[in-house]
């Protein structure tokens, strides 16, 4: 059961080697009773677990599942939930693939993989979790989305569209849990300097995994439906999304 500040005792991290996901979990680690990390690489999950242990997490389990295959989602979620003792205070949806627009835009396999990892797998995972969440009558799902999901740009439409699909899914999923005691918070960070974005040009108002994590943790007690990090992006994208298409297209990649 989470405390009055939203500090969870059990955390299910879908995407256990996500830098932002890990940064959030690390800030909460010392107050947890049990953490379950779901990811593709045992080695990377072990690294995450070591880091979390150094932050005071008393118990960490790992579940291996490949997010490129949506049929593995239900089993992974079930195993994770079981490892946590049957109920979960915080679910972090942190699976994600950035891809490489220039390289992938002519590649059917690459395009499909982005949709699989960024949309198909996490939507299957949340659907599998839904009955348990309703039964337990409490909990928070934090979905790591992106400002790229707000309006697709030519420069990254493969990534953007897959994130947009999942962003809408998460919002609807949250609405569908109205009255159940379970809330869903969608985080839309701006450009975050992480391993995933290494080498890319940072956009304006870029941020770090740690800053995003700090914003998420500060928002836990109120857990708004949509949170932008940094907060000013709410107003920027509030305007950008309504720009006439002719202007939007002119914004450089």
């Amino acid at each position, binding site marked *: *059961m*989470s*405390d*009055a*500040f939203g*500090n969870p*005792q059990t955390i299910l991290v879908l995407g256990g080697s996500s830098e932002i996901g890990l940064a959030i979990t690390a800030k909460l680690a010392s*107050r947890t*009773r049990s953490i379950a990390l779901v990811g593709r690489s045992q080695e990377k999950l072990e690294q995450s677990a070591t880091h979390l242990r150094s932050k005071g997490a008393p118990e960490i389990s790992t579940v291996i599942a490949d997010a490129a295959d949506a049929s593995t989602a239900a089993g992974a979620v079930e195993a994770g939930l079981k490892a946590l*003792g*049957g*109920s979960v205070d915080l679910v972090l949806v942190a699976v994600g693939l950035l891809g490489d627009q220039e390289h992938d835009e002519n590649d059917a396999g690459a395009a499909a993989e982005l949709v699989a990892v960024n949309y198909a797998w996490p939507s299957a995972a949340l659907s599998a979790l839904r009955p348990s969440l309703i*039964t*337990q*009558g*409490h909990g928070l799902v934090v979905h790591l989305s992106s400002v790229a999901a707000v309006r697709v740009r030519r420069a990254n439409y493969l990534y953007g569209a897959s994130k947009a699909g999942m962003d809408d899914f998460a919002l609807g999923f949250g609405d569908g849990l109205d*009255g*159940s*005691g*379970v809330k869903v918070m969608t985080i839309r960070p701006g450009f975050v300097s992480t391993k995933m974005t290494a080498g890319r040009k940072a956009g304006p108002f870029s941020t770090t995994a740690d800053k995003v994590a700090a914003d998420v943790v*500060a928002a836990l*007690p*109120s857990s708004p439906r949509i949170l932008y990090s940094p907060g000013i992006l709410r107003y920027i994208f509030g305007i950008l999304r309504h720009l006439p298409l002719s202007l939007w297209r002119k914004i450089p990649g």
Partner: protein
Amino acid sequence: MHSRQRVRMHGWGMTQAITAELLAANAADDLPAILAEAKHGAIARGLGRSYGDPAQLAGGLAISLLGAGRQIDLDPTTGLVTVGGGVSLDALISAALPLGWFVPVTPGTRQVTVGGAIAFDVHGKNHHADGSFANHVRSITLATPTGIHELSPESQPELFWATAGGMGLTGIITSALVQMIPVNSSVIAVDTDRYPNLDAVMAAMVEGDDRYRYSVAWVDCMRSGASMGRAILTRGEHVDDAAAAVKIPKSSRISVPFKPPSGLLNRLSITAFNEAWFRVAPSHAEGEIHELGAFFHPLDGLAHWNRLYGPRGFVQWQCAVPDQAGEVIATAIKRLSERKVPSFLGVLKRFGPGNAGLLSFPMAGWTLALDLPVGPSALPEVLDELDELVVAAGGRIYLAKDSRLSPRHLRAMHPRLDEFLKIKASVDPRGVLRSDLSVRLGITSAMP
């Protein structure tokens, strides 16, 4: 027939909202059977005045006796009353006062049930004189998954003292026999004094509390330096005036209708309020006549006052420390002030010796209760630090107010926990009775 409904519920601090099934039980219900069949656990829920999560169970069953009839059988000669677990102290006071009897202990609100008063072994402004609520309970009728038990401190001391202060984790208190105190009026004669700082009011309380039945200090936590903890000390006695008309404390008609979006209570408004409140109080007054309601239950004058804290809600932190650790009180107020964590209400009382309740809160010494709005980033850390100070001083935190204590402090604060768990298991072997608080603190497990 009883009705079950899936509803949203939370504590008075409005944090930790969850969904659970609420069962409005009535007197004819077979509670042991209902408990034995509760697949996802069960806990009693009264009037929801505990600040955190002890009267709720996410995904489980919350059982309310509020609609189970208003049993109040008072013997007007002895003052012994058999009262239903779901009956509020408000109803009990209204029924008993015209007959010359008053509750032996009352917390700061009348809106708690008798069951809740026993389950949290509530205390009032007279602990140094009269102890806590359970000290005045002659017997309890308890419904557990294994049957109905009639408990008294003589016949079944173990289960009685596990249930008194046991936060509903041993079963549901369906009725109790309580010894009321005789009173000859519905007013209190009050002496009021203002003190420029915490040291001064604490010295005055040590020096003079034994001369009064009731004593409480309102402490201004928004000051620092020389005027840190300036306080208004009010102390009083029941007035002996059998001829005077008896006025029953009335439920308030004024209410806060909704939560203001960002809370009306902030550093500025509270600092201003505290200044006004301090100035308005007489620097010294003797024998002023106050109605019972105004003296004992000032906040009952504004229904839903908790909504003033806005959507983020608030937490309450209350500690009890032994006499020799009085400096913990000063350190607590100082630390909050230094870290810019505002507390909007500070209440300081003396405690006499505790009772045999295994999880009961009061211990001889001091108790400080603070209302703290959720919001300041340093708040969680500072409260953790204050907990460490309290543990180091041999004190404890009041679980009726708690919503964020770290489980690692539990055994240090409640050394008789293992004894309690053994007795609980004897009437609840499958661990049906649990609450969000008991799960959060590791007193019980999460699932059966």
